[in-house]
């Protein structure tokens, strides 16, 4: 972040010297206590908000997951781990896990490499790159709900734009029921997610690319490295911290996917696009099996937590040690 720090005009003039201090140990301790109170006092509003509205709900879900409970009054019908064992037998929930994994793998294999390719293209001095950058990122600022409605109409069977265009160029065979077709619904959703989100990852990569010192590429060029070698041996390693962050955000996004699916298919047809969050919503808000829905929340929480900790431990930690980070810090 860039900014200029202008020295305050008022400071530097009319300096009154502080009165000579009497530094007894007691005075210092009292001052330290006062200092602590001031510092913590500034934290109180944030802490209250965070504890009441973020931590407490998560802890309460952890508690409610051990009850059979309709959501009214306090939970009283303790059932132990029944909700969790039921989850392991629930084909819809196991399907959610599978679909989450599929989305993650598709993102890693297609969406993120595509975003990287676009970032590399737009990092060159090409005509109109500012316009492309803005256009590719624009869908990110639209809400998932609005994006969902838009594409549910574009991919409407027969009447939608997609089928009309494919039919118009004689490729009817490629068209279809899209969101209504159990075997196509996930692929179509992934297409929409890519439309909406690749620009965000591209922007992250662009920021990373711009922090790579140009001298490194020039040096590699002098050493006779071709474009692919320069990309493979200079750009990619230096971009690694950014790539790891982007992978992390992509996975967390897949774990909590809700809005888009809810607006477009509500998890259908026949659960073929359901996600953990949608299943949780169905049980918690439609069928009033709040204990069971809480168990789903807890599993989502557990997956996020384990993933985040493991990722931090095994992947992100390297960024704190490796020379690449130092390099990036200097280049900023």
């Amino acid at each position, binding site marked *: 972040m860039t900014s200029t720090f202008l020295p305050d005009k008022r400071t530097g003039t009319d300096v009154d010297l502080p009165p000579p201090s009497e530094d007894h140990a007691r005075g210092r301790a009292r001052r330290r206590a006062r200092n602590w109170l001031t510092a913590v006092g500034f934290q109180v509003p944030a802490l209250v908000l965070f504890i009441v509205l*973020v931590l407490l709900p998560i802890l309460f879900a952890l508690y409610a997951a051990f009850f059979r409970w309709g959501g009214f009054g306090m939970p009283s019908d303790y059932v132990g781990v029944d909700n969790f064992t039921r989850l392991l037998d629930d084909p819809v929930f196991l399907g959610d896990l599978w679909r989450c994994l599929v989305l993650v793998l598709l993102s890693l294999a297609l969406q993120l490499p595509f975003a990287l390719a676009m970032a590399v293209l737009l990092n060159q001095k090409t005509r109109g790159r500012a316009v492309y950058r803005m256009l590719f990122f624009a869908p990110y600022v639209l809400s998932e709900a609005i994006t969902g409605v838009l594409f549910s109409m574009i991919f409407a069977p027969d009447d939608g734009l997609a089928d009309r265009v494919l039919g118009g160029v004689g490729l009817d065979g490629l068209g279809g029921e899209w969101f209504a077709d159990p075997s196509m619904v996930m692929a179509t959703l992934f297409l929409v997610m890519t439309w909406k989100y690749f620009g965000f990852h591209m922007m992250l990569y662009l920021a990373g690319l711009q922090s790579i010192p140009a001298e490194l590429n020039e040096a590699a060029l002098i050493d006779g490295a071709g474009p692919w070698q320069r990309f493979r041996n200079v750009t990619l390693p230096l971009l690694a911290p950014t790539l790891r962050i982007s992978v992390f955000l992509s996975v967390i996004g897949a774990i909590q996917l809700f809005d888009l699916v809810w607006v477009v298919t509500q998890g259908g047809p026949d659960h073929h696009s359901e996600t953990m969050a949608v299943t949780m919503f169905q049980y918690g808000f439609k069928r009033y099996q709040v204990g069971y829905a809480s168990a789903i929340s807890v599993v989502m929480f557990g997956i*996020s937590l384990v993933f985040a900790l493991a990722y931090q431990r095994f992947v992100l930690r390297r960024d704190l040690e490796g020379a690449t980070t130092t390099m990036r810090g200097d280049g900023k």
Partner: protein
Amino acid sequence: MSRKTARNLPLHLVLVAVGAAMAVPLIYALLSGFKSTDQLSRNPIGLPDPWVTGNYTGILGAGDFWRLVGNSTLIAVATAVLVVAVSALSAFSFARFAFRGREVLFTLFTMGLMFPFAVAALPLFLLLRSMGLLDNPLGVILPQAAFGLPMTIIILRGFFRQIPGELEEAATLDGCGPLGFFWRVLLPMARPALGTVSVLAVVTSWNNFLLPLLVFTDNTWWTLPIGVQQYQGQYSADTARVFAYLVLAMVPALAFYSVAERQLVGGLTAGATKG
């Protein structure tokens, strides 16, 4: 020169193709809004003939759409003000004080980044219900601010740390207490960072769907994303009208983006790399 253009040709073709894929859905929606539904089914791809403005003017003329815009705006602005004010105090304390428990507390906040909102949605709903905050804008504003804290605090803390310590000493010598320094020196200097986090908070709130869906059971306080979904359900037979509604619902976000692009992109990349 010409060789360079020739070499760049494939590159340009790729960019044009991707650009078209990005733009076509939006342009299609815009044009479809200028057709009647009847015309849309006869002529889905071409330009409108004649151009029908009734869909757009009809929606803009009715109060419902404006109420949604007003609700979304109010909730987004209130969320941004609250989360930025509270986070600024906290980030100030993290950046400028050495106090016992600081690292633990900071870790607690950063952990909030890892938790998907959907995890807390259900118990949060129960909590809001017991606090009587359903169908109340505070029921959306307060949780949004709470979930926005981690990112906002991290960005602001990084910014506050860059402000040289001499300034604080000078302000203290001038008789500024910590609060005076925060209010009269730090905040005015941090205006760019405050702008960035405010823009992030506004966009996040504007696009939120799950929370308003849970909290607002009747349409008084509905926000735009909820309104669009409901509109599609209500007018599913009148496709052209839904397209017009969609386009109008996208305009505020896209307009905001074109004005605040730098803050938004800067904030997202800063948040991602510092988180």
